[in-house]
């Protein structure tokens, strides 16, 4: 039971970051290989507050995510303002991710590459469930708001959207900010679940994992990426006997998904109450 709850918590922490990435990649159509940096910033921000200053857990989480949001505003201004092509943006953010790791390895307050051991462990199953519910609600309401519709317009056709009066920069910037906040929250949970963080935990691989969950889950869906994240965490556990080979299969599965089911698991659809009811009616 503890084993399952461990996997569940690990997956759920990823889900929070994936929801942020869904807004950025899925709904705004931009992509980044540097969001692990925001997870790192959120993790360190929250952990330093509880570790050195004995802040309450919830307050530290909020500060950690706000710190990630603040940094995203600083980085996003030059990178998004320039109206960069998507590949330029991806590489710029990849560089940002690496730079953040190097900075964390050399700051005094983060204790360098040794990391912060013995962080208070506060992240339990109810905490992650509440975090996911709040994240999904915020994301859903955002997507159906005027800001969310603007993001979808930017994704579908940036030129047409601009002609309709959608502010391109503001929309992308806002989406970047929101995704960073979610990643920061995920980082805070991460730090308070493992009780130990070090810069080497937040690599390009983690950014890729978040991105692939979003793409394999379906661009333009919130529930699809969430389901995909759980699948991606649970399936490697099932294949634990395959040891190192399971990562080979993971890469192969990614390629095969893209080739045979390019719209992802869910495509543009959502799993929700209404779609379930519709499905049952169709079966009848």
């Amino acid at each position: 039971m503890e084993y399952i709850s461990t996997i569940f918590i690990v997956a759920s922490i990823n889900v929070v970051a994936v929801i942020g990435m869904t807004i950025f990649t899925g709904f705004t159509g931009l992509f980044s290989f540097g969001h692990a940096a925001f997870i790192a910033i959120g993790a360190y921000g929250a952990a330093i507050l509880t570790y050195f200053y004995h802040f309450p857990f919830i307050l530290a989480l909020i500060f950690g995510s706000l710190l990630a949001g603040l940094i995203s505003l600083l980085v996003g201004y030059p990178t998004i303002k320039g109206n960069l092509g998507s590949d330029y943006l991806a590489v710029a953010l990849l560089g940002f991710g690496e730079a953040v790791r190097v900075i964390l390895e050399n700051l005094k307050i983060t204790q360098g590459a040794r990391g912060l051991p013995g962080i208070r462990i506060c992240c339990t199953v109810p905490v992650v469930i509440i975090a996911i519910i709040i994240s999904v609600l915020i994301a859903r309401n955002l997507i159906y708001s005027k800001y969310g519709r603007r993001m979808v317009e930017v994704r579908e056709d940036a030129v047409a959207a601009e002609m309709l009066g959608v502010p391109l920069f503001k929309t992308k910037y806002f989406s970047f900010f929101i995704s960073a906040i979610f990643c920061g929250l995920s980082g805070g949970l991460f730090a308070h679940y493992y009780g130990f963080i070090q810069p080497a935990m937040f690599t390009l691989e983690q950014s890729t994992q978040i991105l692939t969950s979003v793409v394999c889950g379906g661009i333009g869906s919130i529930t699809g990426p969430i389901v995909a994240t759980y699948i991606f965490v649970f399936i490697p556990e099932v294949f634990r006997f395959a040891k190192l080979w399971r990562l080979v299969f993971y890469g192969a599965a990614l390629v095969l998904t893209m080739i045979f089911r390019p719209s992802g698991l869910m495509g543009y659809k959502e799993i929700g109450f209404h779609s379930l009811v519709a499905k049952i009616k169709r079966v009848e």
Partner: protein
Amino acid sequence: MFLQTLVTGLGIGSIYALMAMGYCLVFSILNFSNFAHGAMIMIGAYVGYLFCSIIGIPFFLSIIITAVITGILSVINERLAYRSLRERNAPSLYLIITAMGISIMLENLVYSTIGSNFYAYPRVFSKNYLEIFSSTIGLIDIYSFFVSIICIILLHLFLNNSKIGMAIRAGVADPIATSLMGANFNVLIRNVFFLSGIFAGISGVFMGLRYMVYPQMGWITNKAYIAAVIGGLGSLPGAIIGGFILGIIETIVSVYISSVVRDVFSFSMLILILLLKPLGLFGIKYEEKM
């Protein structure tokens, strides 16, 4: 001291330029970032190690064999993974994720078959250093510089004087019109991937010689992506100049300031250049498919 720094910078920069060129060739024609290029470089380093150290073929011959092998692998990679996506006109994000998947797959394939050991190339040159003007200059820097210059010249001649090269240039300018003129676009793409694989192999051998051979060495390719973006994606001269600029600046920063801030510095430089010139130094405006 300065001469020594400059030569080291040129040596590292020339490898970055080689890596960035392979990456740029694919970008210029397909408009997507081939993130599997790093894995190809890693495989090139292993293949080079196999020929150079275990079989014991002379160094320069093993570079050529490695280049051909990675070229073929790169073509196979395109055929199996990218072609069906390409024919469906999929958005570049799908191609990028596929490339990431291949990179994860190859890296872990090496990890689970060969293992995570570090391998060092044998002594290739009889002497490791030259003494010029009372500064020690690494022979490997000089060799990698000249090899990459030769590669650049050969590529230039190939693209400008051969029929295939002309087709590639035409394909970069307008893929649809080129295929209407009777050039087989699939063959063209195959040639581009073969060339890109050749560059991956050569740069892989030099990376392995300079550092070590290990499964995660593909991460160094991040530098090549940064170099290509500095130069402007899709522009070959841009990739070369970007590679050299990055190599020289990194070496100067790590010698005169601190090797710790090196990566932070190159990233800030990237942001600064993108802020001033959003398309890089020599970038070409391209249509986004998303």
